[in-house]
């Protein structure tokens, strides 16, 4: 459902990605491996149309991503960035921000589902009333994960979203996503819970091949 075809990406006169081809099927759980600087985040940026100039083609559901189609593609992907850019203000406002946009508009905010998720990820309800600056890295990561799930999308791009969680929570997060067979999940992670999970396929970006 997602395919990168012969991608060449140059950034600041440096070759970030060279002749990369990669196919991802629906329902795949994939971990991208590689040292920093090999273009792991760029891979997500290509899919989301955040880099405008590169050679090669990126397809999502057989649709070529360009300046026109990317706007619809984005609506089908839940993306969380490495730094979990939350901004300022109350946590609950940040979660609800996502639902202010026309494409995510809901008649009723899914309170019940949010409460269940808070419980599963072991966050107390009063976390929502705290200011984002007061939250720990792990709390922020879990809030971002919950928001991504609430968006009700089928494709997830996660850039180092479990790094600040303890072992137990890392495992719970991985289990949650593996359990949904129809979800396509691509993670950039150094966590062994992702990398060593039997259902997760690992792609080595530097060698451009699947780890056996």
């Amino acid at each position: 459902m997602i395919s990168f075809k012969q991608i060449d990406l140059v950034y600041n006169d440096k070759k970030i990605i060279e002749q990369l081809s990669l196919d991802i099927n629906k329902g795949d759980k994939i971990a991208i491996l590689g040292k920093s600087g090999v273009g792991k985040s760029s891979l997500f940026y290509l899919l989301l149309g955040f880099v405008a100039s590169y050679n090669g083609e990126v397809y999502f559901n057989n649709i070529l991503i360009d300046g026109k189609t990317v706007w619809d593609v984005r609506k089908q992907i839940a993306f969380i960035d490495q730094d979990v850019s939350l901004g300022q203000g109350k946590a609950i406002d940040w979660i609800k921000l996502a639902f202010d946009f026309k494409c995510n508009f809901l008649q009723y905010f899914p309170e019940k589902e949010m409460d269940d998720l808070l419980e599963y990820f072991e966050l107390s309800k009063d976390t929502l009333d705290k200011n984002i600056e007061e939250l720990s890295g792990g709390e922020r990561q879990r809030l971002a994960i919950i928001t991504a799930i609430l968006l009700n999308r089928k494709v997830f791009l996660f850039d180092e979203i479990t790094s600040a969680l303890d072992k137990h929570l890392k495992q719970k997060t991985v289990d949650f996503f593996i359990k949904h067979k129809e979800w396509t999940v691509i993670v950039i992670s150094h966590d062994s819970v992702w990398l060593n999970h039997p259902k997760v396929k690992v792609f080595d970006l530097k060698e451009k091949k699947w780890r056996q």
Partner: protein
Amino acid sequence: MAAVDISIFSLIIAILLFSIPIVLSRVYRIGLIKSLLYSAIRMSIQLVLIGFFLKYLFVWNNTILNIAWLGLMILVAVFSVIRSSSMKTNKVLIPAYISFSLATFGIVLFLNIVVIRLDYVFDARYLIVLGGMLLGNSLRGNIIGITAFYTNIKKDRKKFLYTLSLGASFNEAIFPYLRESIQLALKPTFASMATMGIVALPGMMTGVILGGTSLELAIKYQIMIMIGIVTSTITSILLTILMTLPVCFSKYGTLNQDIFV
């Protein structure tokens, strides 16, 4: 009843007032003598030249010449906005110039035609003087507004991209930045409006009062020009941003990095 004349000799005596900052600067080593003299000399030369030009502009009072002069003033204003915004001149000059021209000419002509009801709407005394007041007073706001819009999106890059990834349309994504930059730009103007007359007697009023016109008229002119300033500031910022969007953003909705110096 015109203002009392100041002779050149009297003006030189006025310059003697500078001895106070010069002495203070010496004693406390503030180090502002050089910039003080530079600015003072620059100001004097500019004003003498402008006085010379305006004298002829007022005498000839030629429609095309008046419009061209205001056009030139707008160009200088646009250059100073772009230079302060750290954006590349060749990328944004044309859209910014068109926006500023529309805002300035539009409002000055509205004032001349509808409010003051001049018979000759391109009269240099009104077109150039009022236009200059609009430009001069909205300059700071324009600099703040346009700079804030682009630099905030650049600074908030990750948050902006997150917004796009949520599925926001381009307008939805830029809207908070647009709102924030215009509010920021108008803050000083609103503050000066709120204290006007109490803390500061604005230039427009001072001029009209010393010129010997009635106080009532001076106040009416001042109110009119302040309305014009606020309107032209909002209009020129909004138009400039809207017209530079196609140059500054890619079709993917991301900010082009090559627009900054």
